[in-house]
């Protein structure tokens, strides 16, 4: 596997792991780092040995946000031509489940990266915030959209306007953190969760993600039409036959992702 400048990667037990690796800079995200993350996610998405993607950050923070030095002198035309947020659009197209394991600061772009995950496991003491407003700007990689869809307009406005630090317990009570675990066990628990998903039939997992995501963008009627097509589609899979036969025969199914 090729070497990356700002991330570390490895695949084990059907789990494709991506670790942000700028611990001294609290994993501040630069453009190259995002490119690397997206590149690896896309390769994992095509890799049969990967069923679940696990994204985490090395050191005491998941990510303290974007690398400010890199953008302080940008102008609108340069940003338009650079089109850096296109990489973030590609993140939304990943079909396999993405588990985020976060600790410490989850700020700005780091928060947006966390919100791009499907499931978030967070360490006790993790703090989420959009501090962009204090620099005279605003979130640009989906923060105002994703957070609003998760917690509603009223809270999203308060949090993004005020740059308030949201404690992990509050994050969980508002539904964007699935589980809170002790910091020492973050990796172990996130891997346990990833493994549990990796043991399920991959095609069903994939089409569940596809359908649930449609609930965000579609009307209920359209979403339900979409859901049933995916439901029908799974009946053409071997895993559906295996799953139902195993159920009838009272044995454990063996899923192959076919």
């Amino acid at each position, binding site marked *: 596997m090729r070497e990356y400048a700002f991330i570390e990667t490895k695949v084990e037990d059907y789990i494709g792991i991506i670790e942000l690796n700028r611990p001294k800079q609290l994993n501040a995200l630069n453009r190259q780092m995002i490119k690397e993350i997206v590149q690896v996610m896309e390769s994992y998405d095509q890799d049969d040995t990967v069923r679940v993607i696990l994204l985490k950050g090395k050191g005491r923070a998941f990510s303290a946000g974007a690398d400010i030095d890199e953008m302080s002198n940008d102008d609108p035309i340069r940003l338009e031509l650079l089109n850096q947020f296109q990489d973030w659009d590609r993140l939304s197209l990943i079909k396999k489940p993405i588990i985020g394991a976060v600790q410490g600061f989850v700020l700005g772009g780091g928060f947006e990266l966390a919100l791009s995950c499907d499931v978030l496991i967070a360490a006790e003491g993790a703090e989420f915030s959009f501090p962009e407003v204090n620099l005279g700007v605003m979130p640009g990689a989906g923060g105002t959209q994703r957070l609003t869809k998760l917690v509603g307009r009223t809270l999203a406005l308060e949090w993004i306007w005020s740059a308030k630090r949201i404690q992990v317990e509050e994050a969980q009570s508002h539904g964007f953190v699935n589980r809170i*675990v*002790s910091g*020492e*066990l973050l990796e*172990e*628990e996130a891997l346990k969760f990833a493994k549990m998903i990796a043991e399920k039939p991959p095609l069903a997992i994939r089409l569940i993600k596809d359908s649930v995501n449609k609930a965000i963008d579609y009307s209920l009627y359209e979403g339900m039409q979409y859901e049933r097509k995916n439901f029908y589609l799974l009946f053409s899979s071997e895993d559906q036959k295996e799953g139902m036969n195993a159920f009838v025969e009272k044995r454990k199914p063996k899923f192959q992702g076919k």
Partner: protein
Amino acid sequence: MFTTINYECHEGISWIKLNRPDKLNAFIAEMNREITHAVRQAAKDEEVRCIVITGEGRAFCSGQDLAEVNDDTNHGDLLRNHYTPMVKAIMACEKPIIAAVNGVAAGAGFSLALACDFRLASEKASFINAFVNIGLIPDSGNLHFLSHLVGRAKAIEISVLGEKIPAQKALELGVINRVIPQDTWQKEVEEFASKLAKMPTKAIGLIKRYLTLAENLPLDAYLEKEAEGQRIAGLTKDAKEGVQAFIEKRQPEYIGQ
């Protein structure tokens, strides 16, 4: 370095000595900041396995220095900016913290002692929840800690009457752990601190963490957390050493990890 406190570390013990003896170690903003900083520093320092907070001179701490308070003072902001960070730093520290109360602990000085894990008091020490005597309420977490220690009835009595509680009476109330005679004071505090500094530090930190969770979670949720905590403790070198020493019928030697 520090101007309002003395900070020294030896043999695994970090000593934070409030050092404004002519003001009976009353709090000024700088002292709040320095205690906060010192506790965080001790929490991070791998050599440190026990922290002692005590006072230079005849007082432990007489609370907020009223010379720093005037008609324009926003008492809420004074807490938010100076006392709350100090109390949070103490609560966040996963090493044992002893308040060695050498003399009077009044107002926020009482609160400081209450925020610690252990309270050793000299026979000359006394405690006063003095806030009500100037028309204020106990702060810096005082009511939270006090009501947990002595229950609501006694917490109300201590806070509303604002009377001086001698060390022996504080012991009977369950506010402190022990009273130490003046002539053996220094020696007994050192022995107690040194005993804690040789214990499995990580386990002590976890006991503190899970005690807080135990106070705040329903039993089912707590039992799940407890399993996590024991998993963490079970992974420590000290847990392995503890079992090994037990099997080999010898005294364990803990390294705090």
